[in-house]
């Protein structure tokens, strides 16, 4: 690696920085992504330009990139927008595994002899963080995809146990430096770290999963930076730290929006005990309406705010919703969307969904902007959302979501809720707003409900 290669790597890092910076506005974000991609291409070409080839390595490289590239493209074209959380989880996992394999190869190359210096420490850290990221992400993926239960899986004394495993991993790392040259230690280390990743994620409930995924995203960046230290490569170091920072900030935004601490999330168990719904729930009364009732209510309303939630994503109802929007706007009604920072299962989940349906992002208001508007609102339509409009977050000190800022729909003149049942949302909590006398429930899958609403509305006009 000559100076010119370092400079080229730096240029590619600058392109990553620029690409991320351009994500600050939806108008230029797409170009930003292309710029980042350009940075990646430059980094790859730079690498290919100074390494020495044998014929076999050319084959490995060519076939590896082709295989991975094709798999990636297929994946990218097929994945549903609603499955973004799962996709991010998998990609994190792949990145983590790749880094940890690279570190492993480096160890084999130096015949397992490592000592206390930056490269060795980076190798060990890559193995640790890389494999935790891998097994943790895969566990998270399985939970999100409901291949294993989304509920927290609680092993007694799990936190002490995890701590013990972490300490033994660190112990193994120290041993590997002291008794350098022993392969077995590294395999043990790898195994212990993989176990740790699984055990860390298992007790975390589904609602907290996105936080964990953002955290693992951050890890996948940090491990890339460590890989950078192994090869003294600025492109890896800089882009790794950018990803690390990004994941950390997203984690913080989410925990803040949920009024939880990161420690509280990581210690796990959230939502495991909260499922015992208030027993009086069934005694309380709620009103349920037909789509005709709601259509005529909307007919006489001027200002409408729609609150989308996770159910919208599950039902894939965004296109029907766009139709409803068009119908309402044709009637000269003011329709806005209230986007809670943790609505759905990923930061910005709702935004992507609505953008997919071609709904103008200027109609999307965030928490601060929208909460002062509810008092002038005629109807708030809640579509597949629950926790983000649960007043318990403000009123009930014992509620697990107490302190989380919510969308204050109870200020609006009437409320319509589209969901399938009286079942709770992700936090597993009953929601008093459903029993409010202003509230009308419309039961059914969100897509079906919106479609019939559209039909009723058209029949009215």
């Amino acid at each position, binding site marked *: 690696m000559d100076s010119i290669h370092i400079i080229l790597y730096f240029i590619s890092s600058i392109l990553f920085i620029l690409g991320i910076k351009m994500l600050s506005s939806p108008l230029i974000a797409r170009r930003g*992504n292309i710029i980042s991609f350009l940075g990646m291409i430059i980094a790859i070409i730079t690498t290919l330009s100074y390494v020495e080839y044998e014929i076999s390595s050319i084959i490995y490289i060519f076939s590896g990139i082709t295989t991975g590239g094709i798999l990636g493209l297929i994946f990218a074209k097929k994945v549903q927008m609603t499955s973004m959380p799962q996709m*991010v989880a998998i990609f994190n996992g792949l990145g983590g595994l*790749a880094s940890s*394999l*690279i570190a492993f190869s480096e160890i084999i190359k130096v015949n397992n002899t490592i000592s206390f210096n930056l490269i060795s420490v980076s190798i060990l850290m890559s193995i640790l963080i890389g494999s935790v990221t891998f097994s943790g992400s895969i566990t998270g993926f399985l939970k999100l995809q409901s291949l294993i239960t989304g509920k927290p899986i609680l092993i007694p004394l799990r936190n002490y146990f995890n701590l013990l495993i972490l300490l033994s991993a660190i112990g193994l790392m120290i041993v590997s430096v002291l008794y350098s040259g022993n392969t077995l230690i590294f395999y043990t280390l790898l195994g212990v770290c993989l176990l740790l990743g699984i055990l860390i994620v298992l007790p975390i409930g589904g609602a907290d999963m996105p936080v964990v995924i953002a955290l693992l995203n951050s890890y996948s960046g940090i491990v890339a930076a460590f890989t950078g230290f192994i090869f003294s490569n600025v492109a890896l170091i800089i882009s790794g730290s950018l990803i690390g920072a990004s994941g950390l*900030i997203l984690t913080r935004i989410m925990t803040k929006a949920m009024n939880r601490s990161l420690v509280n999330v990581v210690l796990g168990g959230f939502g495991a005990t909260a499922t015992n719904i208030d027993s009086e729930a069934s005694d309380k009364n709620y009103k349920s309406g037909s789509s005709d009732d709601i259509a005529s209510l909307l007919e006489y309303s001027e200002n409408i705010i729609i609150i989308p939630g996770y159910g919208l994503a599950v039902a894939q109802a965004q296109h029907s919703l766009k139709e409803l929007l068009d119908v309402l706007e044709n009637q000269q009604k003011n329709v806005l969307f209230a986007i809670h920072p943790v609505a759905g299962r990923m930061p910005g989940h709702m935004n*992507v969904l609505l953008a997919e349906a071609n709904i103008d992002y200027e109609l999307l208001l*965030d928490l601060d902007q929208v909460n002062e508007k509810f008092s002038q609102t005629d109807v708030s339509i809640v579509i597949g959302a629950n926790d983000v409009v649960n007043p318990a977050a403000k009123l009930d000190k014992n509620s697990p979501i107490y302190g989380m800022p919510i969308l204050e729909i109870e200020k609006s003149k009437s409320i319509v809720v589209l969901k399938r049942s009286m079942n709770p949302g992700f936090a597993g909590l009953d929601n008093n707003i459903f029993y409010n006398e202003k509230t009308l429930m419309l039961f059914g899958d969100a897509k079906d409900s919106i479609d019939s609403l559209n039909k009723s509305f058209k029949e009215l006009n």
Partner: protein
Amino acid sequence: MNDELYLILIFIMAMLLGYELIKKIPPTLHTPLMSGTNAISGIVIIGSILVITSASSLTVNILGFISLVLSSINVFGGFTVTDRMLEMFKKPKKRDKD
């Protein structure tokens, strides 16, 4: 001589810069941010290439190959899916605003 130390300083500076940049990204774009950084984390592809081209044994070659495949998935999948997402944000249709 002080190479390693300077690389660590560069790492810290990049963290601070990343912090300032990412704080400014609006919530609207947080999902594309996640998948975009996912794609960038495919940069370990460089490491995979370096492993393969300096491989001393078949084991190393295979490890390098696997990590190359994984990181290529990240790179090509990540950028494509992010592009797909961002395309949706591209042009909000003009509307008469109050």
